[in-house]
């Protein structure tokens, strides 16, 4: 009559076996790990990011709008200033000629607008939250033109599923899905808290929508390009979510 499991008969102690297995699994995990986690997880994380994007696009509604909380003060001078150039990007008319905003790509009527052209278009102002990927929020009054209005003027073609917002800030750009771009609170902003933008906040104009995280909202805007495909963006290429929805 044999007693115990066969493995025990041939000399493998169950306790030692479990310890050895746990040790080997732990060592393998540590070896595959750097501070960003095991490398083999990259595919899984990308898969989750893609699934999350589909879910976020399903949740997206043009009727979901943002409003700064009652009694919230505008951040004013405390509003952070971010850019990727070494110094604050300033448009110098003497070098580059007068600033103009180009609306191009898949449009029947390309536009080239000066700041006064923009200011002459229907003006929209909202007191909005700014949601930064870092977790802070700041309240500001944003004044500008609805991107949906510009899209209508430029007669955007069918099949233009994406929009790229380009800048003169050292090649910074971010592309968006068209649905977010024509949200009623997506504005080409030229004034903040009642004054024309200063260079720290993206002068002469920037894109702003509370439905996107801060990094998706290109400042120092030069070009709006309607496209059939997405073309990434400065921070999205770096590893943040491309969709960046709020």
């Amino acid at each position, binding site marked *: 009559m044999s007693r115990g499991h066969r493995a025990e008969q041939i000399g493998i102690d169950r306790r030692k076996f479990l310890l050895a297995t746990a040790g080997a699994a732990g060592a393998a995990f540590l070896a595959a790990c750097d501070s960003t986690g095991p490398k083999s997880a990259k595919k899984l994380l990308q898969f989750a990011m893609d699934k999350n994007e589909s879910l976020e696009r399903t949740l997206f509604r043009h009727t979901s709008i943002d409003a700064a909380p009652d009694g919230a003060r505008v951040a004013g001078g405390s509003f952070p200033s971010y850019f990727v150039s070494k110094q604050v990007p300033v448009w110098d008319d003497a070098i580059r000629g007068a600033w103009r905003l180009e609306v191009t790509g898949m449009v029947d009527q390309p536009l080239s607008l000066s700041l006064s052209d923009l200011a002459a278009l229907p003006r929209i102002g909202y007191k909005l939250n700014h949601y930064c990927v870092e977790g802070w929020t700041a309240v500001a009054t944003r004044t500008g033109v609805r991107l949906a209005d510009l899209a209508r003027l430029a007669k955007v073609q069918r099949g233009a599923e994406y929009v790229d917002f380009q800048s003169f800030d050292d090649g910074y750009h971010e592309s968006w899905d068209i649905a977010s771009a024509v949200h009623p609170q997506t504005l080409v902003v030229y004034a903040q808290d009642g004054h024309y933008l200063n260079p720290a906040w993206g002068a002469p104009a920037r894109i702003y929508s509370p439905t996107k995280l801060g990094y998706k909202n290109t400042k120092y805007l030069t070009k709006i390009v309607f496209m059939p495909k997405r073309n990434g963006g400065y921070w999205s290429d770096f590893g943040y*979510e491309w969709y960046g*929805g*709020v």
Partner: protein
Amino acid sequence: MVGSGLRIFNAYPAFARKGETFCCYPFEHHPIPAQLTFGGWLGGARNWHFAMMWLLVVNGFVYLAFIYLHGEWRDLVPRRGVVRDSWEMVKFYVGRRKDHPIQGKHNALQRGAYFAMPIVGIMAVVTGIAIWKPVELSWLTSALGGYVWARYWHFWAMLLLVILTVGHVFMVFAVDPYSIPSMITGSYDEDASPEARNARPLLHLRKRRPAPRTAP
């Protein structure tokens, strides 16, 4: 989830809206020690957080479905007199009471902790959704007091879960290590229960020898 959450938090280790102050967090602008964080950088931590949240949600549903279908939720819902019974347990643990209070499967403190766990877990998920989608699901975020408060409640949910987990794991080893195999096998030796051993944390860990049988 906790490690990556803390790494995300460290990107802005405060709750105040820019240009304002926040009443209720004493460590505003003091980052969490990096050794406690996971993800390496903000984007990496976010990618982990937004992937693993599904595991948390699925795991939570499986757990809730299991205890519902097996009726074991009855072992977790606090009974009448839970406050008094918990107080008796505390008194026993600190040595102000000699004998272990009579309990069923779980003592009153355990019931409280195990009942709170899924509630705090649900709170963590709900507050997390609120700060993930404060515009698309603004009704939810507003119900929690707005983005800043929802983020604060999310932090608290994490903290409570960590406290409950650390307390639970400590007590498993300090009071009832005999329950560890039963977590997998399901069988439990009642003679080794804390009640039978009159066990306080780290005391009376050894099983009592059964009384010697005497000849009739």
